[in-house]
């Protein structure tokens, strides 16, 4: 267990998540959606969490923010934000962190805003929840924020209802709202998945600019390796509720360790160069938390599985790079070459 830090050093991680495990009570047995997730977020850093749908990305975020339903959810582990253990905070104090210090951008801009209020009202509402400022002052700030995120005509947009905006504009409004209290940490849950590539490029540009101008740390959840490659400083690869690999973006892209990461990278069709005859796909489908295989959860789909894989895999660590896999370091290059080779030789 990490002892709470009284006076945080500016270079210390602003968020430390240790051994986070979340399970849900369901009609049948309780299911464990995420298991033993640990990571740090350093100041000014973009940490990307990638994984297929159902791998537990959203659940990790929501439990960090304390937004899971306490009636059906049990959470264990530690989440330390700026030296404070926040999982144990009473709701009243947690509310002061939510929206002010940690802000959320959720996946679908079409449904993330309350349909019956103007976007200006919704932004002002958040500002007024955390600062004593007049109604008019909050509205003025909302107009400024909308301008900052690059919405045209912010003073007119502020009175628009969500349905009167396009998807890209709504996502900007959501981002403006998240920024309204200058949060130290921005958590973005698939912020561009529902958008077209051209609009995605605008939004990613905006996030990069925010990091530069405000020095916010960002947790960027996505399933798109392209977005990761472009945005992330560090990467967490999740599979079936566990972090199977983590490291810097260079480590993940240039020297990935886990066969799942290999498959993930190889299954993306390239945009230039020769086209492979067939894509290197991962066979099968991801397991659901209710029927996880014993041992390594990826083993049934892994083409390199061998006897030990029916046991819980060890975590290899080296220079901040970790992987949850039995494959010994010296075998990795050779095995990975067969993944790439299958792809190349067919081309």
């Amino acid at each position, binding site marked *: 267990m990490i002892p709470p830090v009284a006076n945080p050093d500016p270079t210390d991680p602003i968020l430390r998540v240790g051994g986070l495990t979340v399970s849900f009570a369901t009609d049948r047995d309780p299911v464990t959606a995420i298991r033993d997730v640990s990571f740090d977020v350093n100041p000014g850093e973009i940490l990307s969490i990638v994984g297929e749908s159902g791998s537990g990305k959203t659940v990790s975020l929501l439990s960090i923010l304390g937004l899971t339903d306490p009636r059906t959810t049990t959470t264990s582990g530690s989440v330390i934000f700026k030296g404070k253990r926040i999982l144990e905070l009473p709701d009243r104090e947690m509310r002061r962190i939510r929206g002010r210090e940690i802000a959320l951008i959720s996946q679908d801009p079409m449904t993330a805003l309350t349909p019956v209020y103007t976007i200006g009202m919704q932004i002002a509402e958040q500002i007024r929840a955390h600062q004593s400022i007049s109604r008019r002052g909050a509205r003025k700030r909302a107009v400024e924020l909308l301008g900052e995120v690059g919405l045209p005509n912010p003073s007119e947009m502020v009175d628009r209802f969500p349905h009167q905006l396009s998807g890209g504009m709504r996502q900007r409004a959501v981002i403006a709202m998240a920024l309204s209290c200058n949060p130290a940490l921005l958590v973005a849950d698939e912020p561009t998945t529902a958008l077209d590539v051209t609009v995605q490029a605008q939004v990613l540009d905006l996030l990069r600019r925010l990091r530069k101008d405000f020095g916010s740390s960002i947790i960027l959840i996505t399933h798109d390796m392209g977005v990761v490659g*472009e945005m992330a400083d560090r990467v967490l690869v999740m599979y079936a509720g566990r972090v199977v690999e983590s490291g810097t973006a260079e480590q993940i892209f240039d020297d990935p360790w886990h066969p799942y990461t290999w498959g993930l990278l190889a299954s*993306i069709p390239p945009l230039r160069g020769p086209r492979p005859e067939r894509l290197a796909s991962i066979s099968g489908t991801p397991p659901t938390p209710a029927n996880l295989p014993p041992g390594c959860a990826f083993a049934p789909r892994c083409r390199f599985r061998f006897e030990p894989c029916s046991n819980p895999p060890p975590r290899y660590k080296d220079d901040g790079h970790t992987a949850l896999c039995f494959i010994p370091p010296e075998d990795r290059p050779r095995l990975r070459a067969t993944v790439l080779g299958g792809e190349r030789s067919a081309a």
Partner: protein
Amino acid sequence: MTDAAVLAARSQAESSAPPLLEARHLSKRYHFGKRLLPGSGKIVHAVDDVSLAVFPGETLGLVGESGCGKSTLGRCLTRLYEISEGELLFEGREIGHVGARQLKPYRRKVQMIFQDPSGSLNPRRRVADILAQPLRVHGIRPRAEIDDRLRELMDLVGLPPGYLDRYPHEFSGGQRQRIGIARALAMEPQLIVADEPVSALDVSVQAQIVNLFADLRDQLALTYVFIAHDLAVVRQVSTRIAVMYLGSIVELGSTDTVYGRPAHPYTEALLSAIPEPHARQQCERIVLQGDLPSPISPPPGCRFHTRCPFADDRCRTERPLLRPLDDGRSVACHYPRTEVSRTAGT
């Protein structure tokens, strides 16, 4: 009756055979809003004067941002929607405006696959019933052979025959898409129009289905129209590409030509917007400003001029038609990028 646009629609087809399916000046409009009072209804020009030819054995990729009319065009091509204007020819015969009876043989030869197959799979019927129904209705196979055919279909799409007794909800997204494909194949079609067939799937599963499409094409000599907004996927499966913007085709050519050197500024922007994992540190990116204009009141002149970084007065007034370039592809732009750079280079 082959005007310039129709010729441009055939650009860079590899085969010299006549087109399997050809759309000529096809338009599709939706009317909505109150139509009691004249002039109060609104018209969406979802597909606007599109000419397109699909040749036997090829895969024609249809790309563009959401709302540009890809699905509408796909459904017009399969005659799921009525065509507002223009002609549709299948193997040279006009089928755009014929009645249901004359359409029946065509309905068999052209099948559509959707993004979310569960919407079209009856949840109360077993897979075997779902697949056998078209065989019975169209009398494709004698009754005695149906069981064998079902096994064959499951084998084609890579599912164990034991799954025939299950219900759609027992399958994962990727497996359901395989069943959707099997159902289309049951009709022994010549042409399959696939509308975003892999968009709802996870990357690892997406790659499996993309591979399946390629395998089936080789095994069954199928022709595809493959609609998707993911340009990397479309590049992987297509031999030719049509890029759509606001209801029109702006660029059409072989995959390598279009991806290698896009001629339309829109294609160029679209390609440069894709984040790439393999080539990290992106070079210059063209970020399009603004949003797609409304298809209810499309801008005059070139539809793309409101977002085009190179637009001038001519673009704002005169609408460019799809025309062939020297390198074989067709483009609807007054100042194609390839020509601009060539003149700039000399």
